[in-house]
């Protein structure tokens, strides 16, 4: 043990506060999963009947599974509006699919999401049409380049490697995979589509550019700190937000395949949150935190001076630019002009009547229709999640 390690040990022991409460057995008991009580058969004469019933049930289940795998869509579960215990104001939501979803992007005529470590292609109204298994607990991030689906995962027990995988679309067949070691991500690796034929993977302090054909590494960009957000602009700008306590957005210009030059550093008013950078045609949206949370929009011409700042009570916010609107989701709902930052409707606070926290995001747009992952958390646990169809107020579509 070095002197420094010993000092860290003393520091932690001395300055970690003591709780004013303790955990009791009844507290723990409330956390136990509810178990179904099954009654045992009392006489042997029921055994053949039970066995027959089991055989029939199994046959039915097998037939059902076979049927669902072939043509029939996965049943849409009851996440209809009455089952959403939230006040959405003038917004409306209807259930599409239940599951434990984390990501949501649109791809072609489908939605791509992750449910329990499975990559899913969902066609609204038809259910899950293709799926692929992902490594367990690997913090997946997904992107679609118009031809293939890209998934970056972080293998926590595997030597801190980020794996980039390419899946075919629409079948989601694994085609190629490459192991990268860019550094440990704060909340998971970030993957996005960059210049034509290039995929960008951000993790830790590095952004790795990978050629989409053979997955070879074209270049590695080292940032000033951990990357929390990445955004690519088609004219060759790469924006990286993060660097933890440095509170900056770095603006890079692409100078060649996998090669970037730092153009400017834009000071921020607080640490950007993970996944917090989104570009529109004319500017950059950023979610940051300094005492309170702020959703900011700044034009590319003047990134240092935001044209619009929306103060928020929460960091659970996502922004999606699609169809001429910036859609603001999370524990709030709103919409804005994506190129000026001007709000088109007042921000609506999603109020949960159960005492839990409800989040509507990320949001994806497919054929002009909005979809969102609805998640409900209670005491740090996920109560339910579902994909819902969102109907925004008509003012959101105005110019």
């Amino acid at each position, binding site marked *: 043990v070095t002197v*420094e390690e010993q000092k860290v040990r003393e520091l932690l022991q*001395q*300055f970690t506060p003591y*709780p004013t409460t303790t955990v009791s057995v009844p507290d723990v008991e409330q956390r136990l999963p509810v178990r179904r009580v099954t009654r045992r058969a009392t006489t042997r004469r029921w055994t053949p009947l039970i066995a027959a019933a089991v055989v029939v049930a199994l046959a039915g289940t097998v037939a059902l599974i076979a049927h669902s795998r072939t043509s029939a869509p996965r049943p849409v579960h009851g996440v209809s509006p009455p089952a959403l215990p939230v006040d959405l104001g003038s917004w409306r939501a209807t259930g599409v699919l239940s599951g434990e979803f984390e990501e949501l992007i649109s791809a072609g005529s489908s939605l791509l999401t992750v449910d329990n470590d499975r990559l899913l292609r969902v066609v609204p109204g038809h259910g899950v049409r293709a799926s692929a298994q992902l490594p367990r607990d690997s913090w997946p991030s997904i992107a679609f380049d118009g031809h293939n689906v890209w998934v970056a995962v972080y293998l926590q027990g595997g030597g801190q490697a980020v794996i980039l995988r390419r899946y075919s679309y629409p079948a989601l067949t694994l085609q190629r995979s490459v192991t990268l070691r860019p550094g440990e*991500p704060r909340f998971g690796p970030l993957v996005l589509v960059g210049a034509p034929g290039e995929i960008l993977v951000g993790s830790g302090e590095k952004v790795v550019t990978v050629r989409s054909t053979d997955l070879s590494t074209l270049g590695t960009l080292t940032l000033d700190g951990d990357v929390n957000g990445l955004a690519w602009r088609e004219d060759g700008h790469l924006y990286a937000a993060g660097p933890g306590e440095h509170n900056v957005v770095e603006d890079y210009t692409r100078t060649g395949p996998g090669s970037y030059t730092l153009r400017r550093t834009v000071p921020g008013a607080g640490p950007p949150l993970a996944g917090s950078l989104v570009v529109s045609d004319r500017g950059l949206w950023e979610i940051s935190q300094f005492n309170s949370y702020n959703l900011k929009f700044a034009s590319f011409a003047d990134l240092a001076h935001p044209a619009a700042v929306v103060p928020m009570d929460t960091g659970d916010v996502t922004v999606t630019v699609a169809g001429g609107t910036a859609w603001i989701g999370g524990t709030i709902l709103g919409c804005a002009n994506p190129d000026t930052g001007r709000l088109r409707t007042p921000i609506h606070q999603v109020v949960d009547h159960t005492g839990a926290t409800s989040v509507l995001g990320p949001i994806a747009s497919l054929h002009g229709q909005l979809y969102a992952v609805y998640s409900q958390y209670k005491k*740090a646990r996920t109560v339910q999640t579902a994909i819902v169809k969102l109907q925004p107020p008509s003012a959101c579509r105005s110019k």
Partner: protein
Amino acid sequence: MTAPAGFKEFVEECSTPLLRAGWLLTGDWSAAEDLVQMALAAAWPRWDSLPERPVAYAYVRRCMMSVFLRELRRKRSGEIPVHLVDSQLAYRDADETAGVEMRESLRSAMASLPPRQRAVIVLRYFVDLTEQDTAAALGCSVGAVKSHASRALSRLRGLPGLHESLMGGGG
């Protein structure tokens, strides 16, 4: 449901150290309570197969780390707790003002670490586990623990609030 024999005593004995570890991981008492309760709830059904106290403690720690990393992933909206104000704490150090400042520095420093590094710091230097036991609790290799610890220490070294304490005369 009746708690298995010895479980109540275990909860009473381990609650405080587990909560303190939970606070270092999450920076928040209610989240720390959630973590500890969920870890203990995972141990309850298996209690009879955890006969010795160190084994049970190791199991609960492992559950706690697993829950911590899993739930972070679920809520990866990226909220980073900084500049938090917590008025409900009891301080045991003599110089309360300095203690508060140091505690806030510690909380910010821990929050600035990626989750795995945070977990390694807590297990290695707060719970005082060996590298092997830390690796077992996190389900990773000893090499990964060393690497996480080294990076975390390097990062903590650069933070203004902790710099003097680590490089100079100590806490």
